């Protein structure tokens, strides 16, 4: 599983960061950083929650 963020869509609302702070971080520059692009299967449900709850639908999961 690889996390893909469309940074043209991302508005740094930081919803993902609340769900998975070990994977997503919005820093003081107001930009989103992906701390772990390829989390393990154990993180799948949390990442899926991020995908679903992102207000801009900017997050997706690539299976490669």
């Amino acid at each position, binding site marked *: 599983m690889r996390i893909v963020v469309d940074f043209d869509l991302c*508005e*740094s*609302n*930081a*919803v993902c*960061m*609340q769900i998975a702070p070990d994977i997503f*971080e*919005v*820093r*003081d520059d*107001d930009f989103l950083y992906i701390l772990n692009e390829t989390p393990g299967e154990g993180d799948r449900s949390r990442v899926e929650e991020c995908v*679903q*709850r992102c*207000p801009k*639908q900017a997050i997706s999961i690539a299976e490669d």
Partner: protein
Amino acid sequence: MTQAPRAITIVGASLAGLNAAEALRREGFDGPVTLIGAESHLPYDRPPLSKQVLAGDWEPERAALTDPEELEEDGIESRLGVRATALDLNTRQLTLHTGETVEFDGLVIATGARCRTMPGTEGISGVHVLRSLDDCLALRADFEAMPQRVVVVGAGFIGAEVAATARGRGLDVTMVEALPTPLSRVLGDAMGEVCAEVHRDHGVDLRTAVGVEHIAGDGRVERVTLSDGSTIDADVVVVGIGVIPNTEWLDGSGLEVDDGVVCDASCLAADRVTAAGDVARWPNELFGETMRVEHWDNAAQQGAHAARCLLDAAVGPFTPVPWFWSDQYDRKIQLAGRVRGDDEVRVVTGSVEERRFAAIYGRAGRITGVLGFNRPRHVMRYRALIEQRASFDEALAAEF
């Protein structure tokens, strides 16, 4: 306990309704799912309607939340442009505006809300509300005609976003607010004043503590008369004075309606009937308070919860920390929690002068909310503390 429904009908094809439909499939429900929507459009996202679409930066298609292929893949049948007009719980039938009746087994009520309007303005063109895509395109067309002056009635979040977008288009804007300080009931006087200053800094003529007496024009709007007797010449008026939940169609259904469809803590309104989004009122056990929430995040989450509730009676209570964002000019304003105007408020990081800060709210020793101006990271951190029912002192001592 009753069994899970064989088929599920969702009335309301916006964010809550669509999220309910998608959640049913995610949870493995394989019976028929039907989405009934009063608008002729497929589900679309409303936040861009006061921002990117209204600004002309996006074409409306970009606000789509789904497309016919996706719905077909998920096996979601959509019936658009049809309005439900009655509900009969005994026969488990819906009546549509066409006169047709539709049987249902499980039901999600997600009919949302509509804008309050100013009485007496019905026949006057150029007077707008902003809720639907059609509202947005009508207002956008009026903005494109480069009006001399736009009057925004109500300095709540919708009014504020419309004012910001209009200023971004270079239009002159007067915003009229009945309260002495905009948003003071929601954010308190101090933070409401910060919001007011942001508009003044961007050239909005903000009039506070004054009501609108009369909107007049011969066919087309010409002027707005205020309660202090002054008048403003206007070519476009946008009224943003709140919404009314769409519950009239439930009259006589036996469902309890009280400023929204009254649900239990899990969003259940009756046997195999749930409600979600702007139309639902439910006791949020995290706050010990019955609420109806009009935010994007709530519609999405509650839609999914209402769907799960139909499939599994043991789903448990819906206990979110309400949260929303509002983009105005170059500021991202976010509020999480359940704040009252008289809560104690403290700035915990950043600078109010630079309009880049977070402030937390407290009442009875507990943190009740967090407001951020371009501080999304802090808002989410404090939102987690609210979720954990942290004390105000704990929150004040936290460092993020």
